[in-house]
């Protein structure tokens, strides 16, 4: 058990030195952090100077209608990693899956962290929650509805980080027919900054990169139209894909085992949502930088985009649902890069069309079918 009489390090610099980290080690940490925050390596000295003075923020992690995949993504990465170092220097005061406390003690930890860090703590939310008009009984914790707990917890928060597509956009629980009336965090929180770190699950380094940004500079990152940090979601998967040269040459895999698939050609015709999906997978990759879905030969599902479950089919090419597949695809293959942008727009339009034409069913009807 830790010596409770020992002073708790107040800054990240103190915390790292307490753990025996040398200045070269610290510089290395900053180089990896810059890489993690998608900043140029030349920012490492500035990061070092800022981190030296950074204070340990209190983080309250709320898990609502979710599968714990986001937490798994964060904690099942190779250990120890930069992510772990970051987690070592934040004060994670409440997290259902990770905390030892349970019942009243757990809720007390949350209340204590809110009280002690009024106006300064971060709230991380994973999972969607039943909205104000939904039956709150679909998801409760300690006798509180998710909505009650969110509203109470964010009252004194500095900012909210919605981790995962469920928290950011509603995700799977919100998919048609949305039986629990699920909504995203931004549907509820209107008076505090919300950062959406979407993905199903998000890339672990993107989760910690956002925390590192706040820890390092005490500010929130620049966001896109969906409140996602531009550093990680600023470019489409398509634009950063190593298979992009094949798209530009019109070389596509037509099936999962044809010659094109074996040669690593573009997966656009197999339903790749890369042109409409914005995420960091193409460069940060997964499993410690080992690979990512497209490198494994599978099209991108576009899991970081709103309503990706209802976007018309994972294996339908973006241009297929509303047009003649042959003609549209041929045009895309020939026209190359310029069409890539158009494909993104087309994909979003198709997503909207698929949503509009989707046959709605009620929960009762669904139960009768099962």
């Amino acid at each position, binding site marked *: 058990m830790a010596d409770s009489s020992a002073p708790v390090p107040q800054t990240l610099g103190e915390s790292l030195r307490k753990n025996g980290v040398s200045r070269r080690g610290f510089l*290395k940490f900053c*180089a990896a952090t810059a*890489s993690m925050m*998608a900043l140029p390596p*030349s920012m490492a000295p500035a990061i070092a100077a800022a981190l030296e003075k950074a204070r340990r923020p209190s983080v309250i992690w709320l898990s609502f209608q979710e599968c714990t995949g986001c937490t798994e993504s964060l904690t099942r990465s190779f250990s*120890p*990693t930069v992510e772990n170092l970051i987690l070592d220097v934040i004060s994670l005061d409440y997290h259902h899956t990770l905390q030892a406390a349970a019942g009243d003690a757990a809720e007390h930890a949350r209340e204590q962290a809110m009280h002690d860090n009024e106006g300064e703590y971060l709230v991380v939310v994973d999972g969607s929650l039943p909205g104000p008009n939904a039956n709150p009984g679909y998801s409760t914790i300690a006798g509180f509805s998710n909505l009650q707990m969110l509203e109470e917890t964010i009252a004194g928060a500095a900012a909210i980080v919605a981790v995962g597509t469920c928290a950011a956009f509603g995700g799977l629980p919100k998919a048609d027919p949305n039986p629990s009336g699920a909504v995203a965090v931004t549907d509820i929180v209107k008076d505090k900054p919300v950062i959406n770190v979407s993905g199903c699950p998000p890339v672990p380094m993107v989760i910690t990169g956002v925390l590192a940004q706040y820890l390092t500079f005490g500010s929130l990152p620049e966001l896109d139209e969906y409140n996602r940090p531009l550093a990680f979601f600023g470019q489409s998967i398509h634009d*950063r894909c*190593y298979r992009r040269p094949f798209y530009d040459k019109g070389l596509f895999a037509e099936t999962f085992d044809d010659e094109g698939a074996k040669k690593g050609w573009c997966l656009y015709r197999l339903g790749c949502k890369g042109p409409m999906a914005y995420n960091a997978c193409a460069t940060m990759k997964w499993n410690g930088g080992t690979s990512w879905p497209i490198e494994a030969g599978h099209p991108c599902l576009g899991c970081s985009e709103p309503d990706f479950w209802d976007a018309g089919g994972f294996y339908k090419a973006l241009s297929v649902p509303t047009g003649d597949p042959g003609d549209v695809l041929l045009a895309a293959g020939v026209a190359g890069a310029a069409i890539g942008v158009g494909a993104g727009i087309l994909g979003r339009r198709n997503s909207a069309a698929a949503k509009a034409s989707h046959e709605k069913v009620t929960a009762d009807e669904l139960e009768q079918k099962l």
Partner: protein
Amino acid sequence: MPSLDDIPIRVESPPQTGADFGNALPILNEIRHALGRLNETGEPSQIDLAAIPFGPGDEARLLELLGRGEVEATVDALGPTQVWETRFSGVWVVDYANADAQRVALQIEVDVVPQILRTQHADIADAIKALDERLADAASGAVSKSIFGTSEH
């Protein structure tokens, strides 16, 4: 009964080593520009290879093109960091790994000496302080006759 030879089996060879997706050459051009800047103005550059969309074989191809030069070093801080100068002087590869030897970052540094090999000024100040303390202890006879390893008997 058909013999084993009659069973149609197609042996598929693993991908040839050195196969790549052509994404290494643009980085080599970027390094060329960075080396030009270092030569003309002394401005160092760093390229984070984690930010480059490499496919299988691209990174290996780049490192193969860069090759290895005269200098290699290992820094033991928060896990091993391998540093080597490529066959192009002034172009360094810095491979950061964690305590489990898993890579946390891979960078190209175009500089006279990579940052991580330089002694930090704060460390020099700390070293002076530590050395002064040793000398003061030695002068007062509190420590052994030598700070170079001979023991007191």
